[in-house]
């Protein structure tokens, strides 16, 4: 079942390396591919380099998307991580 959640980035400094690394940590727990989308740009959620190419600042709407059978829990966890501002300001 495809799963997709849309969530707004609300940490002050946006999607810099530290938050990206936290997303990768979660995404690696699932075998399926997971993508983070910003407008038309798509990044593999298992790669810091790809996530950093999004350059998503505070306030950006991001979608978390996966078609994988084992992805639902991980997508929800990433959604929660973003909503928690990655533990930052």
């Amino acid at each position, binding site marked *: 079942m495809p799963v997709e959640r849309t969530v707004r980035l609300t940490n*002050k400094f946006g999607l*810099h*390396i*530290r938050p990206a*690394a936290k997303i990768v940590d979660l995404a690696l727990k699932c075998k399926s591919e997971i993508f983070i989308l910003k407008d*038309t*740009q*798509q*990044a593999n959620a298992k790669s810091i380099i790809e996530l950093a*190419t999004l350059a998503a600042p505070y306030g950006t709407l991001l979608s978390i998307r996966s078609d994988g059978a084992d992805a639902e829990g991980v997508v929800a966890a990433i959604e929660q991580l973003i909503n928690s501002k990655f533990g930052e300001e």
Partner: protein
Amino acid sequence: MKFADFIPSRAIILDLKTTGKKEVMKEMVERIKEVFNLNTIKVNKAVEMLMKREEIGSTGIGNGFAVPHCKLDNLKSVVGAFARSSRGVGFNALDGVAINFIFLILAPSDNPTVNLQTLQHISQSIKQPLFGKFLRQAKNVKAISEIFKYADEQIKQCQLNEPCV
């Protein structure tokens, strides 16, 4: 954005003499201070902040690249240095690969947007299939400058032909 905006050719180190993370950072911050005439920067203080940032989580972001960085007050723009290490520097990168290429970035503390754009420029370059290979083969600083210019151009083309990350 272009590499030359924040890493002029004088801030490129062809091959690091030391392999210790802290010594490498010191050498690179000293180079930035000299090249950008940043007389007010305290090198040891900046190195301490960079090391603290690494403790939170490695900035080894994959493919042999690390991007140690910190924010400093009184900086007008992003300033950086690039260094190559043929022997490899231990950065505890998340993918376990030894670090051969370091972009050290000092960023103004009050401008999150420009910091994200700098990181984006570096990441988009690393993603290019030949970037790392060319950097490995470069024989001198001039060659590395040319590789940076080529990467700038690829990114510009990419922005003109959306969608293309």
